């Protein structure tokens, strides 16, 4: 494995996280619970698509086969996607969506703060751009967690259920495989393992204030780094890639 190959894989993973979450959130366009939330969730989706574009463009450059970011986004099979399992989980009810956003945005805030120091200039540049946007996403998720958790009996119950249902997908956020370790030694990748305690304490702080509790330790799902996904990703791709598969190179 060369540094270039490893960095390509790393950019694909980060790019897929942004791409698939962007798609998931865009499903809520015109379906937000209130108009302001419709705007908020689609704004977050747009940030994600922008981030995906930057990362997949970089991946295409590293790959060096003349592909564009669109080729990479639309022309891979499920097994070649490496987004976290948490990201592909369905939106569920609004509390579910917020629980996913909370787990993820707190993680991303910690992650991109570290990636900003990467020795890879492109990744560091994208990280420094991203971190500003992630702060907004995180504040949005925290605001709603507090509002729903410390709201009505029903909103509290649903928020806790969202948190409980998704908790088993959070362990994967901190996993390090051989690509991560290889790039960590070269000061390119982030040591995600070291972010776990901080993440947990940040999440706990929010949940306590929201009168919610951190779910109990459970079996953690894993697989995305090997391309093994939950059944949800296939459904996302069948919709997302439909046009490019039915009409390759379509332009309008």
């Amino acid at each position, binding site marked *: 494995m060369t540094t270039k190959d490893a960095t390509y894989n790393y950019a694909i993973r980060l790019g897929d996280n942004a791409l698939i979450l962007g798609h998931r959130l865009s499903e809520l366009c015109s379906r937000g619970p209130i108009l*302001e*939330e419709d*705007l*908020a969730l689609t*704004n*977050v989706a*747009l*940030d*994600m*698509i*922008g*981030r995906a*574009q*930057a990362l997949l463009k970089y991946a295409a450059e590293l790959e060096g086969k003349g592909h564009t970011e669109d080729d990479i986004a639309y022309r891979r099979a499920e097994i070649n996607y490496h987004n976290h399992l948490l990201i592909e989980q369905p939106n569920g009810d609004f509390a579910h969506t917020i629980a996913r956003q909370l787990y993820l945005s707190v993680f991303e805030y910690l992650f991109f703060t570290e990636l900003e120091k990467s020795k890879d*200039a492109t990744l*560091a*540049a*994208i990280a*420094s*751009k*991203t971190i*500003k*946007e992630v*702060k*907004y996403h995180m*504040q*949005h998720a925290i*605001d709603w967690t507090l509002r729903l958790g410390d709201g009505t009996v029903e909103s509290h119950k649903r928020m806790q259920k969202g948190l409980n249902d998704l908790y088993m997908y959070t362990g994967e956020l901190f996993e390090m495989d051989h690509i991560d370790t290889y790039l960590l030694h070269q000061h390119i990748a982030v040591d995600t393992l070291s972010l776990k305690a901080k993440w947990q304490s940040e999440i706990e702080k929010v949940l306590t204030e929201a009168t919610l509790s951190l779910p109990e330790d459970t079996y953690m799902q894993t697989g995305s780094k090997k391309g093994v996904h939950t059944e949800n990703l296939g459904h996302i791709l069948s919709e997302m890639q439909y046009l490019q598969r039915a009409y390759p190179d379509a332009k309008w």
Partner: protein
Amino acid sequence: MVTVDLNTQDVYNLIAGIPDPEIPVITIKDLGILRDVKLVDDTYTVTITPTYTACPAMGMIEDQIKEILSNHGIDKVKVELTYTPAWTTDWLSQEAKAKLKNYGIAPPNHSSCTKLFSTAEVVVCPQCNSRHTSLISRFGSTACKALYKCDNCKETFDLFKCH
């Protein structure tokens, strides 16, 4: 064939006045989107930076740069996108902020955005200058704006977020 004898500053001046597609009262120079113009061999390389990563105006701005320069006989133009340094509202001039306010958008009122959250900040209504305003939504009609309402004149307005 138009013969041209323009230096990079002339080229910069030609494109500096391109209005932002979403907020046409301010230019790409006012916003800090236009970063640099260089002459590399015989090609003018224009560097621009997006406000937000997914700013959908980038493609349109690139087209406008090429169109304006083409109208001045310059066809060898390359537009490059950079992410460093990351765009910040600190680059908005006082003049640009005044233009925003006249347009009905509250300008970002402090330069430092290092604080994680600044909910306590006072946002002044661009219509009636009241300081009694409240946040409706952190996310507004475009990525760079948040939605506020004025508790005095009751108008809703956009705040250009500190970024």
